């Protein structure tokens, strides 16, 4: 069964690329055929973190039709079972892709034959980040315990929700619904997104039902990186509780990763952190995190839920 994990998080510098590279290394060391795709189109970093400063091929080669298929852009890494599609020599205007090109990439990604595909998504809440979350029902968010980061994660989740809704309705209906929702919110201080859902269920019950089901199928995970001793270890759990209670999106807290100065050293040396410093607190946290995520996914499939589907794009 294929697993596609979009790993992003809104705030820049939270540790998304860092975690993608280390989770990738860990999965590969467990014998899983893993592919990491750097879809941070304008600010690609993944190649540096796995020690490939001069990748021969990159994602833009596929976009520019230098190669015919996406798997011709895949390169091997120093770790067995671990592969990379780099963004190192992307076009200088790669961040401003046409919609059709983006769909082409997304479709191609979902067809690649790997057990785990990790997407390193960039910062911010532009379509370039949000659209990669549309690819599956599963998603990972990386944040730090700082309020700035938390605020950006909330914003990202809401933006994804908003985009899913937009994709389900035609343009006219969507425009009128958000207008009404805006009015409803001012009057009764309701949450904007709950207002939208309520209005859709009211005006178009069929679509409303499908939307609700789509939202219920979502499974997100939250990781809090750069956890320092003074931070509240329960923060991640409470943030997930907040999202579940007020947005109705199913999100589970996956773990805290301790802050470690040696991570800075590993990045400077351009090596993967858990290979170079495997006995640090942070490395232990990363391994624990990976185990927990696999366990949570297994529990979900054992419980009879449908395994996370890759949407037909």
């Amino acid at each position: 069964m294929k697993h596609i994990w979009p790993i992003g998080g809104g705030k820049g510098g939270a540790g998304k690329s860092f975690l993608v590279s280390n989770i990738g290394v860990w999965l590969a060391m467990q014998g899983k055929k893993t592919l990491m795709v750097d879809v941070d189109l304008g600010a690609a970093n993944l190649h540096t973190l796995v020690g490939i400063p001069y990748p021969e091929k990159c994602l833009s080669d596929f976009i520019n039709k230098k190669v015919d298929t996406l798997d011709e852009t895949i390169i091997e890494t120093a770790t067995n079972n671990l592969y990379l599609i780099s963004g190192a020599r992307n076009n200088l205007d790669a961040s401003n892709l046409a919609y059709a090109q983006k769909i082409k990439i997304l479709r191609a990604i979902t067809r690649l034959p790997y057990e785990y595909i990790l997407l390193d998504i960039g910062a911010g809440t532009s379509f370039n980040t949000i659209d990669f979350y549309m690819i599956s029902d599963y998603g990972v968010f990386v944040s730090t315990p700082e309020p700035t980061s938390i605020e950006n994660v909330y914003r990202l989740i809401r933006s994804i929700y908003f985009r899913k809704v937009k994709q389900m309705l035609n343009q006219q209906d969507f425009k009128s619904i958000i207008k009404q929702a805006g009015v409803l919110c001012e009057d009764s201080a309701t949450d904007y997104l709950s207002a939208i859902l309520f209005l859709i269920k009211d005006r178009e019950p069929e679509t409303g039902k499908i939307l609700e089901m789509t939202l219920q199928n979502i499974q997100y995970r939250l990781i809090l990186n750069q956890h320092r001793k003074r931070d509240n270890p329960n923060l991640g759990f409470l943030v997930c509780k907040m999202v579940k209670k007020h947005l109705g999106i199913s999100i589970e807290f996956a773990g805290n990763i301790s802050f470690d100065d040696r991570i800075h050293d590993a990045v400077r040396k351009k090596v993967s952190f858990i290979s170079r410093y495997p006995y640090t607190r942070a490395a232990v946290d990363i391994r624990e995190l990976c185990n927990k995520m696999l366990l949570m996914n297994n529990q979900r499939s054992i419980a009879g839920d449908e395994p996370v589907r890759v949407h037909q794009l």
Partner: protein
Amino acid sequence: MKPFEQQNYYEILDISPDVTQFEIRSAYKTALYIYDDGSPVSYSFFSKDERKKILTLLEEAFLTLINDQTRSEYNRKLVEEGVLDEEDLSGDDYKKPIPIIGLKRSMVSTHRKSISGKLKSMTSSSNIISELLALDVITGSDLRKMRMLLEVPLEHIAEYTKVRINLLRCIEENRFDELPSTFHLKSFLRSYIEYFKLDPDPFVERYMKNVNK
């Protein structure tokens, strides 16, 4: 998932309907930590108005549930609306903390109450008591037999009479010379018989005949 305003008080505080007051207080404390103005958890999640509304609702929920009377009224309302089942509520006596101080005494006294019940049922049928009284002499082993029939452990008698347990054992095993004096013996014996809610005099009389032999 219902929007926040439509959730009932238990759902808002994330508790089940049969929790204790302590848990309600604790849940409210957690909720305040989460929804308070400076909280890192809900930073940027709500507008000022939304937050105010939520805090008001939480306070309302807490004040209703923390008072037993308003809580049962609220529960009844929920049952009428079909939200709660009758079974979810353990009547109107919610779990209260177990009183430590009164514990030991009550154990013995409830047991003793059951004795008299047993005794009454035993006296109605052919019983060991009248048999004992028919005897001219009663020994410690007779007393022991009676005690075992009524299924009373010696510890209970010791607790109730405040007589040390080994002294009571001496009485039952006819080792009366180990007791300090005849006065003590008689007095312990009386207490022992009084535990069974019987008239001690005939028993003491017959036991002393045994002693004097």
